[in-house]
């Protein structure tokens, strides 16, 4: 990581309150293009809220969010996503009654046709280019086994992989991951880390929320630590690990 790289995302002074609770307090965040940036912090620190604010699921009370040189705060969620952002949620968000291929095809179609298209004279049967592409993405995440079964029958870990395949099919520039390895075996966790690293080498930027310190330290190039909605530390993994404030607020118990 050189200082010459341009930031793909810049969050400046973002705050958000829910009633009396200040979920985000003057948060600043700079993410370099092509990097893997982890956000850590204790439960309720505002990590998910921050990701929700980025994609317009929740609107910030104040502050600016600049993505690829463009202010995106206040835009509708689908407009923000169409600019090249994808989001993996904490609870896997998939289309349960649709097949795995259909799940992923939806994201590929959203990439191809934009936010809306009255595409009626096309038949999405096996062999359609979009379906073939969806299958490729499913193979990439290791779900080649049952492409045409309904997504609702998958295990929780597999649902997470399906959601990842769905997000990858949108070919995002910036991928937001909320605990991407929760509920996975150690083996699957490692393969997911490999996949994410591989995608970064191809230039995809990632912001990862993670509780598993093994994942955080083997994956990320920069770490931002949140506690009670405030950024208490930011830096390279080694700096953050050595920071006494972080150890006190968060790592103290979990550090192994």
């Amino acid at each position, binding site marked *: 990581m050189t200082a010459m790289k341009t930031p793909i995302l810049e969050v400046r002074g973002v705050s958000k309150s829910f009633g009396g609770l200040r979920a985000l307090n003057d948060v600043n965040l700079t993410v370099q293009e092509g990097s893997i940036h982890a956000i850590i912090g204790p439960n309720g620190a505002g990590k998910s809220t921050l990701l929700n604010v980025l*994609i317009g*699921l929740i609107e910030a009370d104040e502050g600016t969010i600049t993505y690829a040189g463009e202010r995106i705060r206040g835009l*509708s*969620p*689908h407009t923000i*996503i*169409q600019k090249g952002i994808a*989001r993996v*949620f904490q609870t896997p*968000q*998939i*289309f*349960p*009654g*649709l097949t795995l291929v*259909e799940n992923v095809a*939806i*994201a590929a*179609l*959203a990439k191809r*046709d*934009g*936010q*809306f*298209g*009255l*595409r*009626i*004279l*096309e*038949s*999405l*049967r*096996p*062999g*359609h*280019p*979009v379906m*073939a*592409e969806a*299958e*490729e*993405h499913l*193979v*990439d*995440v*290791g779900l*080649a*086994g*049952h492409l045409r*079964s309904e997504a609702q029958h998958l295990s929780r870990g597999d649902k997470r*992989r399906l959601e990842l395949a*769905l997000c990858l099919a*949108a070919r995002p520039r910036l991928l937001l991951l909320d605990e991407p390895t929760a509920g996975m075996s150690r*083996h*699957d966790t490692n*393969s*997911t880390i490999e*996949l994410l690293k*591989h995608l970064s080498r191809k230039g995809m930027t990632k912001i990862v929320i993670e509780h598993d310190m093994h994942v955080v330290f083997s994956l990320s190039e920069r770490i931002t630590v949140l506690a009670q909605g405030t950024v208490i530390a930011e830096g390279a993994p080694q700096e953050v690990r050595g920071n006494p404030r972080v150890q006190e607020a968060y790592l103290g118990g979990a550090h192994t």
Partner: protein
Amino acid sequence: MSNITEAGLATGYARAASRQPALVTGTDLLVIGAFVLVVLTMPWWLVLIAGYEALATKIVIWAIFALGFDILLGFTGYLSFGHAAFFGSAAYITGLSLKHLTSDIVPAMAISFAGLFVIALVIGVLTLRRSGIYFSILTLAFAEMAHALILSSTLQAWTGGDNGLTGLPTPTLLGSPMRGLTVFYFASAFLVAGFIAALVIRRSPFGLMLRAIKENPMRLEYTGVNVFAYKMSAFVISAMYAGIAGSLTVIYEPYVATEYIYWSTSGEVVIMSVIGGVGTLIGPILGAGFMLYFENVIQGFIGEQWKLVLGLIFVFMVIFLPGGFVDLARQIWRSLGHRIRARRYNVPDMAPEADEDRLRRRLDREEAEAR
């Protein structure tokens, strides 16, 4: 996940260059052919089961209504309780055009089509902001407002108030008056076209987006899709089917009843869909046929209490067969299949091969890891 390798990802999208599959396959042509045959011969076979010719026309008209309703309810999961507003408005607009402007059906239907498009857009914009029960109640409210408007003293001079719109001429098609089988075939043409269109929509990228709305609208929005625009399109398309049915009713019987725009009409199309099988396209068509056959033929055998019997059938269906007639047919088909397989091989059903393969691969992996 051992297959995640540099090579594996690098070859990605290689197959994406493949050609698009044809819009209609041989199987589709068989299905459509069978459908056309059954529909077009209805006036004759309906007589064989104690029906009558005009009932066939009525069934075809309501089948169009129910089919359109399924594009909204079956695909997107939005339950409208106000589709009478579209059926009724189209009937009134068509009736008024026939009475005051032209006795030819083509311009009258064109005017009704254009008017209904605007009505559907306005009601859609105002109701689709909400989902679930709130959407249903909003659509019901708009339909009731439309009903009140038709009966209002200000519009009574035009709409005929409580008496409905009377004194309509028999509509003409290219100069000749439409009666009997002409009406039936005219309506059937719309049903067949509507059925093919619905089949094509279901398998299209557009149709997939509609089905995704039913499954998880939030995921869809956060995949970069304008969910509202898709909902709106489905709503308008569905309203246009209802509108065609409404216009055809005026040809079937040159008269517009206030009941066409009343909530009972909305309720009837909901019951047809549920009895037939929501989301199956053919189900609601069967439901429409069943309901009208029951109301007009079976009623004569049962007598006074026919509505009670119909109600019991509906309750029975909802409790034991929520998938409707189509689900019943599927279950029978499947259990027959099971029985035949069991007899032939004398073994219980096996897990699908893909799952077995997958399990074996996973076990292999875990074993290798342990070593």
